[in-house]
């Protein structure tokens, strides 16, 4: 009994620590519970799709896919086109998704290919890859669009004649998903349709894990060599996991942006990787293991912390600017903390493994 409790604590040390910090900070910040709850509902519906897209690469042993930024960029390109063509409403979003899918598939294949060449260093490589493709995206969107790529809607083009503006108003598709089916519970508004879509994704992930492909990925994640010798096409499957993740990320980014209603052409996608990964790490996931509760729980914890820390910082020290920096510090510090704790946990697990192995050998057990 005591051992089970201890194990639970160790396994979930990260979310527990963060939860304690948050609970301590809420009263300091002075934010009302009602406000927080509504914010959480909104942010869950906005971010879940993106964070959930991180799960499959983790299963396949690719680590935390910072490359979801690539998917986000594909989604944004889709949105740029439908804004240019003036397609509105539900049709607009669906068309944006359709446009972005081939782009995200291509980027996913590219990303998977690059990551395959950097085995053992996938996470840091995916960070750099995100930066790199961001540069290519800028090349296309800031210089190509309106130029080599014909655009008709003058409103979204910069005054120099080519290149997309920094911020695009998405009011044509604003909250289309969110408002499609809405439930009002007391003072809270719940975007049912969006949540249904997230639910479908969760079901998909659960189902996927049980398919042969999902099992293959799991095998690769546990031990690449053994997977290879049992006939699994390791390289291709790894790429496939990244492709799926990237496509999901592009849809997720579209869902995210339709909720916000404005797209910062050159910034919206940058933080997405950082924040989504911070969220899933805080939810207790590791580079080797991630589940749906990690994703959803993590979003709640991360966003609570995200909202509360600037306010708490302001109340404690008295400057909103400091509160902002404090929030940045906490966001990155938490990722560092989560990674450190994860590594520490790994060490403990390895030690326990070795202990068990030694005991087995000493007691003369069979192999």
């Amino acid at each position, binding site marked *: 009994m005591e051992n089970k409790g201890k194990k639970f604590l160790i396994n979930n040390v990260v979310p527990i620590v963060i939860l304690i910090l948050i609970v301590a900070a809420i009263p300091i910040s002075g934010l009302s519970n009602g406000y927080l709850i509504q914010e959480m509902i909104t942010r869950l519906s906005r971010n879940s799709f993106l964070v959930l897209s991180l799960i499959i690469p983790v299963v396949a042993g690719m680590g935390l896919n910072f490359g979801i930024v690539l998917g986000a960029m594909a989604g944004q390109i889709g949105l740029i086109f439908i804004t240019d063509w003036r397609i509105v409403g539900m049709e607009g979003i669906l068309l944006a998704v359709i446009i972005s899918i081939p782009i995200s598939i291509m980027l996913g294949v590219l990303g998977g290919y690059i990551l395959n*060449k950097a085995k053992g*260093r996938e996470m840091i490589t995916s960070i750099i890859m995100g930066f790199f493709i961001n*540069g*290519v995206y*800028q*090349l296309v969107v800031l210089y190509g669009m309106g130029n080599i790529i014909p655009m008709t809607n003058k409103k979204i083009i910069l005054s120099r004649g080519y290149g997309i503006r920094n911020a695009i108003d998405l009011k044509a598709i604003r909250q289309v998903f969110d408002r499609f089916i809405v439930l009002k519970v007391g003072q809270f508004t719940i975007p049912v349709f969006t949540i249904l879509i997230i639910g479908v994704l969760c079901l998909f992930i659960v189902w996927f894990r049980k398919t042969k492909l999902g099992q293959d990925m799991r095998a690769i994640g546990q031990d690449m060599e053994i997977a290879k010798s049992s006939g699994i096409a390791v390289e291709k499957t790894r790429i496939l996991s990244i492709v799926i993740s990237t496509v999901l990320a592009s849809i997720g980014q579209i869902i995210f942006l339709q909720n916000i209603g404005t797209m910062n052409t050159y910034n919206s996608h940058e933080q997405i990787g950082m924040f989504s990964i911070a969220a899933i790490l805080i939810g207790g996931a590791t580079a080797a293991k991630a589940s749906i509760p990690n994703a959803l729980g993590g979003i709640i914890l991360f966003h609570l912390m995200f909202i509360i820390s600037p306010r708490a910082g302001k109340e404690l020290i008295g400057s909103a600017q400091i509160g902002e920096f404090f929030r940045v510090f906490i966001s990155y*510090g938490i990722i560092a903390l989560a990674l*450190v704790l994860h590594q520490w946990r790994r060490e403990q697990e390895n030690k326990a493994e070795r202990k068990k192995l030694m005991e087995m050998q000493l007691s003369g057990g069979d192999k």
Partner: protein
Amino acid sequence: MDKIRNYIETMGWPRVIIALFLLSMYIIAPFVGLNLGTSISDTLIRFGMNAILVLSLMPMIYSGTGLNFGLPLGVEAGLLGAVISVEMGLTGAFGFWGAIAMSIPFAILFGWGYSQILNRVKGGEMMIATYVGFSSVAIMCIMWLILPFKSKDMIWAYGGSGLRTTVSIENYWQGALNSFFPFSDKIPFGEIIFFGVLAFLMWGFFKTKSGLAMKAVGANPKFALATGVDIDKVRTKSVIISTMLAAIGIIVYQQSFGFIQLYLAPFYMAFPAIAAILIGGASVHKATVINVMIGTFLFQGILTMTPSVINNLVKTDMSETLRIIISNGMILYALTRTGGKKNGK
């Protein structure tokens, strides 16, 4: 033919390709309206600015603590020293060496703390270093706002509190290192010589017993342990040396650039340095002074030349975007070369 092939293989294809690319940039330059002399001089200046920062990566690579993505930590120590030097009103050579002198204690302190974290996460240093670096920049942002600095050249005008984002050191110690030498605005002899001295010290250090112990810890920890080396202590030493060099590196950078950049400027500084050393042929486990020199030159060269050349070719200013593509592309290239089996995620 075979001899050439062998030579290229020892040099490494990527380095050759990049070197040829850079060479072609220099050749094209005059044809697109760029002055060749200025181009080369610009490259050398950028070399001088960045070489020491790249050099700072060496100790940690040897000791097995990986590529120092936490470089911003050392940079922050350097910034502290620089800012204090300006606060004290030091100018010229005093300003420069004073800045270095005052940053060293901070570098040692930060480096020590940093190493304590890294020693507990063996195998996953690089990822964690990145975030430690980011977090430290954020904390220092808060510090820049609340530390009690008074110098009029550094504080926000109109009675604001906290330091400005950029502090000009034109009147303090800009160019201090090069001022003793001729052609100070074309060829940064001072910086190059200073780099040479430090590089020589590095090279010498790695031939000493401590240096060899450091190499052993990185190459074969079990062997090092067996010979009685305290692994954690050696790693700590390497981290502290790296941090100190980073602090010195940013001060040299600033005296050339003419500005102290605070707040979010150091955020991504690790990446160009790492790109440079990887281009120079280093790997996650091994880096020589030659790697540093060649890498910095090639990297800064491409970073200087390519945007200028392409800008003049296409008549548009795409420098920022091109820099992003080039520097990250090079890091990607280097990261995907070695298919390491190490589990250093």
